[in-house]
């Protein structure tokens, strides 16, 4: 664990992937700078500091941090992945699960205004449960609809918050 055998392929790859964090921060910094240069410094400004100062400072901070992280990673430093009750850090990331979860999530985002939450929410729950390895298809469908219809009633009737009912209008 702490002996630092930096020669295995996975370890070397992991080290390089963390350089992506530094790169990402630098890219964000550049975007902030470009966006800020497009601002008018003196339009409608009260006081000596305009809308550009703070973004420049933030971009500067991001650039400095990007360089420091890159230096740290190249010297063998690593970020410490977050642990947790259900987290098993011995393997790599499971990208199939992540992809399926994102798909279920996006399906809800695209469907919610067309077919309503009682259906889109059920799709989200069922899809996410499937992605996470649950294969009790019938039971999952029942739970998914119970949750989405139940939460719709809770929000609309119980809390007075509007959530789209969609195609089930008139039934619920």
């Amino acid at each position, binding site marked *: 664990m702490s002996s630092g055998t930096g020669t295995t392929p996975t370890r070397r790859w992991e080290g390089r992937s963390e350089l992506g964090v530094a790169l990402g921060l630098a890219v964000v910094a550049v975007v902030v700078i470009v966006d800020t240069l497009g601002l008018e410094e003196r339009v409608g400004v009260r006081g000596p500091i305009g809308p550009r100062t703070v973004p420049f400072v933030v971009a500067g901070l991001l650039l400095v*941090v990007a360089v420091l992280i890159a230096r740290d990673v190249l010297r063998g430093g690593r970020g410490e992945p977050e642990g947790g009750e259900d987290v098993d850090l011995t393997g790599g990331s499971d990208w199939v699960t992540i992809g399926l979860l*994102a798909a279920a999530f996006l399906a809800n985002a695209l469907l919610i205004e067309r077919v309503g939450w009682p259906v889109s929410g059920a799709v989200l729950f069922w899809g996410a449960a499937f992605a*996470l390895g649950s294969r009790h298809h019938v039971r999952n469908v029942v739970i998914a609809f119970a949750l989405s219809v139940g939460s719709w009633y809770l929000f609309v009737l119980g809390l007075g918050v509007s959530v789209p009912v969609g195609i089930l209008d008139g039934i619920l």
Partner: protein
Amino acid sequence: MDAFGSLLDGFATALTPTHLLYAFIGVLLGTAVGVLPGIGPAMALALLLPLTYGLDVTAAIIMFAGLYYGSMYGGSTTSILLNTPGETGSIVTAIEGNRMARKGRAAQALATAAIGSFVAGTIGTLLVVLLAPAIVEIAVQIGAPDYFAIMVLAFIAVTFVLGSSRIRGLASLGIGLTIGLIGIDRTSGQQRLTFDIPQLADGIDIVVIAVGLFAVGEALWVAAHLRRRSLEVIPVGAARMGREDWRRSWKPWFRGTAIGFPFGAIPSGGAEIPTFLSYVTEKRLSKHREEFGQGAIEGVAGPEATNNASAAGGFVPLLTLGLPVTATAAILLVAFQRYDIQPGPLLLEDEPEVVWALLASLFIGNTMLLVLNLPLAPLWAQVLRIPRPYLYAGILFFASLGAYAVNASTFDLILLLCLGGLGFVMRRYGLPVLPAIIAVILGPAAEEKLRQALQISDGALSGLITPFSIVVYAILTVVLLWPLIRRFVLPRREVPVLSEAVHAVEAVHEHHGLEVLDRPEERPADRT
């Protein structure tokens, strides 16, 4: 006394049947959601925030008080009954409490945690009642430059005091500040970082940010590393303690309260340091030192009281300065802002009914928690057995519903997924989430105060210097230079208890983070 008169008014508001019901629902739901593995107090609050959307402000705040303490207590139940620790504040509980549980003393561990939380929460809230009006009297006199200094201190403290890597904390701070810039600049009316997307003109809703980084980020992160073998839950009956347990617990409760409250009231990065401090203190003072590490009841009683006292202490800066110092306090601030209530020195004057009802509810919620949790322990143990696919699917489900309900906007759902992705990357590479959240919330306010201060002084930097802010910047310098001070000024003369606590924190990080290559001391790049 004036504070007590106001507090009695607060009880009058909070003790109506409707408000009691909301407090009860809050405590019950908060505990239930907090018990769920993988859901820490901050995430529980973010997920449950939508439930208060339809309520009037007093009812919502009262319910939130229940959710706050409930989710906190739920987290420690998880640590005791599951044989693996969750978030940082309950690591110590996990060490001793779980050992106790495995020796068949789960009921005693849960009882000392519940009663200790009650004692600490009650004393802590009492201290808030006593301190808040006094601090407000000072706070109303401080101006824009002082606020700016305090906010900078909060940024630096949450970034630098904790975590295994300071630069990664700083990266998180930068990310949060950038997100905070998005939207129309309040002073000049110009759009910053909106890329001509109309939905971004008002900035990203803070609920979406909090739910995205905490809930969606966590669900994606855990999903990618889900333990396929389910964890062993230790069965338990109703929580109870014997005479000997009481005798060994009561002193740690009070000592824990004394340690936790001050740490909660200053920006010190949450409950991790004080809980370890309490643990080490109890170990030194105990007559049963050999039991520590094997399940010593003092090692649960002290840190649990500390955890709750520091949660109560967090209300002092939150209510008097509008300054959240932990993730949970940050979500509370969000809850306030949804009702256009700005916590700060004027809060007690502007909204006395809300504040005193909140404080009264903290007492009530604490008592309910005790009454509820001693007999309900077996039920919570059942909650821990929830199949993990349903748990994390449920988190995504409720996160989506809550975020959508804020503005009824599909765009927010896309943002939520992006922020969840960001949260995932941050967890993968050890960037703490807390500095980002604090920066998103306080960043825009800090900019406003900075510009106000310099407007008054006509651009001269001397406008940032006041007697008060000099003190704050002095503290800031000490925090920043602490590693150097520790190395050169205090070579071997550190307070032994503190250094032992720091050592314990590092040891645990090393034990649970599989990727820690060296101790921070040997990583020069981290010290810049």
